[in-house]
């Protein structure tokens, strides 16, 4: 079963931020039910997710089957996911999920295992080309719960013009970032050269987890032991605090779009965000500096760190256990949206889950993204990770804003984490 061509479509049915420039018309060959049916899709809007959603909506709506997707942001998706999966019947039939939540949703039996469907349709849609490690990241207890669509990893964006002018080398550690930031400040170019997304209600815990990952640790172990009040936890926290003098004093209110804005505005020279945000930096409609940005794998926390300051986030499609629709039809829709042509067309906005799709030639940050994946710590799969992360976040913010000391913060986070983990 192949695609019928990479025809860009003109509508904007998925409410995408990128329009349908990256959408592809593909074959979506399912057995339609006899009565009029609506397939409701829950997926947040972003440059990296929209191409896949748009493809599914535009290619799989036919006959008496309508695939429906309403625009929503990530926070809305999180809330609606909880609500739709709660009862015997839900509002959505296909939901976007990510590796972080798979263990808890799988433990609660909220998602349908996809292994049988995967086997049935793998050859039709070339699903074996989807990275095995990403499939593992969307699995729990040996079962696949989401069909990987794309992945995101931390990438460092920096101002190549400023680095060249000052003779700076691309930072590979936090210390080198500080050295570069000092040089940029000394040259009077910027007051706060480093920009990281540390939004107090979301991104800040991801940043802390990335720092711990660089040191080979995480908030919890795979067997559920909370490991916050540890030497690695302390070192990671102190490393983050060491960057603070080089960041905007209001950094704990900055999400990724605000970090992008700092780069656009020439108020920051180095930023580390998820790769899905990188293509925006290269678009001249967003900034007059679009040609001044270059990309690299994120640095390590220290010279001796095992991994980079990095997080891998895998996005995929899941089927809610409470959907009343035919799982075969839903899986075909999901598989169609991630087929080879659809995945190819999503580059460079996204980093598709299929092997070898992104290279230095077809994506401005392709090499950096590939290097980042190679340097990232493999994700810890633990059912309590999401709950622990939510619980410790307010305390982490208190530490970073100086309201409590690092040691007190670690003690409190350990206690809060253990309470969340039950």
């Amino acid at each position, binding site marked *: 079963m192949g695609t019928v061509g990479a025809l860009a479509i003109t509508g904007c049915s998925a409410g995408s931020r990128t329009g349908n420039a990256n959408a592809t018309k593909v074959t979506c060959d399912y057995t339609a039910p006899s009565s009029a049916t609506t397939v409701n899709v829950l997926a947040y809007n972003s440059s990296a997710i929209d191409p896949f959603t748009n493809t599914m909506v535009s290619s799989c709506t036919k006959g008496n089957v309508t695939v429906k997707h309403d625009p929503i942001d990530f926070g809305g998706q999180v809330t609606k996911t909880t609500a739709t999966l*709660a*009862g015997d019947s839900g509002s959505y039939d296909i939901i976007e999920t990510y590796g972080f939540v798979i263990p808890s949703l799988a433990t609660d039996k909220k998602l349908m295992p996809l292994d049988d469907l995967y086997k049935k349709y793998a050859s039709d849609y070339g699903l074996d080309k989807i990275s095995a490690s990403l499939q593992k990241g969307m699995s729990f207890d040996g079962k696949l719960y989401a069909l990987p669509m794309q992945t995101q990893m931390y990438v460092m964006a920096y101002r190549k013009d400023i680095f060249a002018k000052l003779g700076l080398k691309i930072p590979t550690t936090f210390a080198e970032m500080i050295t570069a930031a000092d040089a940029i400040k000394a040259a009077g170019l910027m007051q706060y050269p480093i920009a990281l997304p540390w939004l*107090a209600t979301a991104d800040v815990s991801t940043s802390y987890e990335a720092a711990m990952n660089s040191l080979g640790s995480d908030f919890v172990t795979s067997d559920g032991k909370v490991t916050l009040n540890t030497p690695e936890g302390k070192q990671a926290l102190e490393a983050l605090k060491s960057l603070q003098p080089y960041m905007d004093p209001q950094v*704990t209110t900055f999400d990724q779009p605000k970090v992008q*804005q700092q780069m656009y*505005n020439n108020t920051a020279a180095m930023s580390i965000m998820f790769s899905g945000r990188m293509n925006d930096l290269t678009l001249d409609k967003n900034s007059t500096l679009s040609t001044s940005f270059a990309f690299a794998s994120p640095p390590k926390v220290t010279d001796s760190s095992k991994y980079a300051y990095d997080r891998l986030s895998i996005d995929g499609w899941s089927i809610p256990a409470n959907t009343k629709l035919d799982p075969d039809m839903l899986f075909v829709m999901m598989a169609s949206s991630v087929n080879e042509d659809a995945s190819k067309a999503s580059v460079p906005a996204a980093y598709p889950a299929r092997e070898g799709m992104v290279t230095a030639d077809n994506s401005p940050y392709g090499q950096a993204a590939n290097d980042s994946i190679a340097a990232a710590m493999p994700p810890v799969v633990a059912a309590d990770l999401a709950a622990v992360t939510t619980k410790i976040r307010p305390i982490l913010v208190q530490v970073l804003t100086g309201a409590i000391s690092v040691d007190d913060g670690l003690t409190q986070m350990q206690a809060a984490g253990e309470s969340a983990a039950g």
Partner: protein
Amino acid sequence: MKRREFWLLFAPSFLVMGGLLVIPLIRTIQWSVENVRYGTPGTFVGFDNYVTALTDPRFGRAVLFTVTVTVITTAILLVLGYVIATGIDRLTKSRPIVLGLLLVSYVLPNLVGAVAFSWLFDDNFGGLVNRFIGLMGGGEVLWFTDQVPNAILIIANTVWHMLPFAMLIILAGLQGVPLELRESANIDGASPLQTHISVIIPTIRGVLGFVTLISIMDVLRMFDNLIPLSPQAEAIGNESIMLYVYSVAFANGAQELGLGSAINVLTIILILIMLIPFIRGIFKEAKALR
């Protein structure tokens, strides 16, 4: 009016009020004593949710912040609303244009207005106010991470959004003040300030009470404008009660619907307490009219 006609006319309102107000209120009270998760029947937990809320320092901070903002904002709304309404009351031909311009902030969706308002203070998006402060020789103000500047920002936005409503109602009240009363005060030698304090304001006391009542109810329920205006509200103690409810009951996949309901019941009690003087006034007036 015959009984049948009365019920014919009253029934639609009764049904709508019952469906949209009474049933949700009963359900909220029921859930407040239960542990409720989406899609599953609640289990009775007595007053555990109330104990959890009342012993959470975060709830105390949210109440303190919300009440403080409510009191300050309502006072500003009354004073500014009265001053502006008095000015507009004197306009003749230009009144529709001025009113139209003043109403822009009120008709904008609160969230949209708050996002645009936040940009005035955010250097990432121009930060016009910051630039002005800089030009006047002032230093950097941390509008989003320092508690007091952030509270000022929130109050300023709330006043900006609600002032047209207060002004419009007061203006309607001013137009109902008999001209003879003002002329009498003038003949008696009252200064303009004395006329306002001793004649006009007492005359429109009911209107001012209504504005106060609505303002208190609206500000106590503030929520959406805090999303752009106070991104780390919890950390700096500028979390409103409704934002607190959202955080514990819904955000990040939380399912504490029982706790959220208990906090809502407590909020209703708080609103009633703050409105007691005005409710009592309304009853007195109604009694006097009988």
